[in-house]
């Protein structure tokens, strides 16, 4: 196939809404939404601050099957409030993961997937959002003993703030080239430390530092995929196929400290980090 044919044959994952993403990843015809729009579980805090609510608060929880196995997907909607995590949207994710853990207590299995697309906590909901992000962290750690918790960062919002920690706690992370993963977003860094520290308008620089290709190359994420629904699904299925590892990335404290010790903060750029860290991804 020519490059043109390859491109035309692709079915974009990034362009889908959260609901469409969940539906596209699950086995055909198995999508069933829990707490959907007509359950009207929306934020009680946004309207007080003159912000229009969304009827699902920006998170879609879907049950279904993945590769024939029972599955639950928590998908964050990038277009609503930058995928920010509020009290309700965050609780939906945490509760879905906690219920998934209970399946294992009952002797059943389920495959949990989180579709990240978030700037982190929703500032209008402050501490309530932060508290529930901590619950998401705890739920991932509890669940990943039983089954891989697979995260996907699609783009174009990326995954930042407290939710970047949630992503880092996942057993495996799938990223597109367009996706970004980082603690503080580039705009925040520029605002706090000045344009001399980081020019957030320099897209080539930003993506070379925190984009999917670099994150996979240095072993902070696992699978790089093109913006194609089929590729994302294949990568998620492959991650479940590898099962629960002997130790998770976030448990390998000594190894990460050793990796950090090799870095010279005065002379670091994306290329030298790759040279330092490439090859020792697990």
């Amino acid at each position: 196939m020519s490059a043109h044919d390859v491109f035309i044959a692709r079915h974009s994952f990034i362009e889908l809404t959260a609901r469409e993403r969940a539906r596209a990843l699950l086995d055909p015809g198995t999508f069933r939404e829990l707490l959907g729009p007509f359950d009207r579980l929306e934020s009680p805090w946004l309207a007080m601050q003159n912000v229009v609510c969304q009827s699902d608060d920006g998170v879609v929880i879907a049950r279904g099957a993945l590769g024939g196995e029972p599955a639950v997907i928590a998908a964050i909607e990038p277009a609503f409030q930058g995928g920010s995590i509020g009290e309700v949207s965050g609780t939906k994710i945490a509760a879905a993961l906690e219920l998934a853990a209970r399946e294992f207590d009952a002797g059943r299995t389920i495959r949990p997937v989180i579709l990240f697309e978030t700037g982190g906590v929703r500032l209008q909901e402050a501490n309530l959002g932060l508290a529930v992000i901590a619950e998401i962290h705890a739920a991932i750690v509890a669940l990943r003993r039983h089954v891989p918790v697979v995260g996907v960062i699609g783009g174009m919002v990326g995954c930042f703030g407290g939710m970047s920690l949630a992503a880092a706690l996942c057993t495996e992370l799938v990223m597109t080239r367009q996706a970004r993963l980082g603690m503080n977003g580039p705009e925040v860094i520029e605002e706090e430390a000045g344009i001399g520290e980081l020019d957030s308008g320099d897209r080539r620089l930003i993506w070379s530092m925190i984009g999917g290709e670099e994150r996979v190359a240095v072993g902070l994420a696992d699978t790089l995929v093109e913006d194609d629904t089929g590729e994302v699904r294949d990568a998620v299925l492959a991650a479940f196929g590898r099962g629960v590892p002997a130790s998770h990335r976030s448990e390998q404290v000594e190894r990460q400290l050793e990796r950090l010790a090799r870095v010279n903060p005065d002379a670091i750029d994306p290329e030298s980090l790759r040279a330092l860290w490439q090859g020792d991804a697990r």
Partner: protein
Amino acid sequence: MENIRYEYPAARPVARRAHVGVVGSGDLEVLLSPSGTQHAEVVIRTSVDGYGHVWKSVLDRFFSRYDGAAKIELNDFGATPGVVMLRLAEAVEASEPGNAQGDRR
């Protein structure tokens, strides 16, 4: 943020509910469900204040061709009239019998 409500006459019941769109920049979310009355009811929450007359024009035109007894909730984040009309048409299509995209619950 502004809350607006309208009522329109209806001639037939609505088969089932439908949900389309997201509350993203320049877009809106539409929840269409059977109103349970003889009328259609439209409830709008919009991020843009002072455009009641435009909403009225858009809905007058929409209801000149739609006669379902639906409750239509619009959560709007600055959609243009064209986008509003498209989303309304999409919601109606999804709520008609025989459409697999509709919400059967």
